[in-house]
């Protein structure tokens, strides 16, 4: 082919390409429906609303089953109150109680009779306070 023939052929091809660009083949409407059905079938589920942030649980609560916390909490509180009351009764016993219980405690060696303290409260330490 000569150069001018090549040019003519090129022009003819360009015309054909332009025709093809303007003449876009169209799909049947059923194809669009089929594609849309596929799209909806594979549509991922919508992301749920942002979850409510849970409060940070204490270390005890994390390892302690949730339904135990309430009854065990009450039991622990009761035990603590009993211990405090017992300690206080020991330190400052009511008058009636000390008379009735003292003999048992003395028998067990847990209480020293007051009379020993009244005589010389520092006798056991052998301190000579006068020298200080």
């Amino acid at each position: 082919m000569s150069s001018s023939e090549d040019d003519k052929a090129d022009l003819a091809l360009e015309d054909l390409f332009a025709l093809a660009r303007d003449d876009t083949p169209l799909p049947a409407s059923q194809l669009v429906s089929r594609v849309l059905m596929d799209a909806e079938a594979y549509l991922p589920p919508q992301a749920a609303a942002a979850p409510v942030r849970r409060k940070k649980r204490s270390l005890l609560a994390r390892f302690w089953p949730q339904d135990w916390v309430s009854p065990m909490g009450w039991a622990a509180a009761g035990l603590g109150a009993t211990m405090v009351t017992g300690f206080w009764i020991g330190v400052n016993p009511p008058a009636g109680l000390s008379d009735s219980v003292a003999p048992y405690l003395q028998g067990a060696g847990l209480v020293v009779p007051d009379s020993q303290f009244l005589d010389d409260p520092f006798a056991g330490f052998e301190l000579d306070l006068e020298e200080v």
Partner: protein
Amino acid sequence: MALDDLNAIADEALLALYAKGDAAAARVLTHRLTPRVFAHAYRLLADQGEAEDVAQEALLRLWKQAPDWRQGEAKVTTWLFRVVANLCFDRKRSRRSRGVQVPIDEVPEPADPHEGAADALQQRSRLMALEAALIALPERQRQAVVLRHIEGLGNAEIGEIMGVGTEAVESLTARGKRALGKILSGKREELGFSDE
């Protein structure tokens, strides 16, 4: 989001919305991409039914891919054109292996609503001649010519679709055009190009 707003959004952003379960994005993408994907498949296969099957399959793969789509890596249409080409060439190979051949002269001519008008007839026959000549090209040349001269893509994007560099694209396009010219040279008078 309203459909009008979605129409202004790029394919990639719509696909991200689709991946989050947005049904409106699915509708917009379907109506936007189906004609384009079908047209490309038709230009590579010259068969309405097969082109529709390929278009549906390519878009089905897109829906499945949506949750794992990596934004910014590829354009949706680039990815789709690659999938369409692979599906088309697989079909052609399997058609060949089954011994089914569609001779160029038997490429079906779609009904022409303007039949009777001389110009419209000539345009139709020109288009049919181009379609037949494209089908006669080797696959890669046909793909390059269709993408460059009919879809109107740039060489870089064609290279991305075909998995080759821009020089290879230029070479494939040039060889394709030369081959088309040879195929059509005998029909120039018939197609009304002799006096232009």
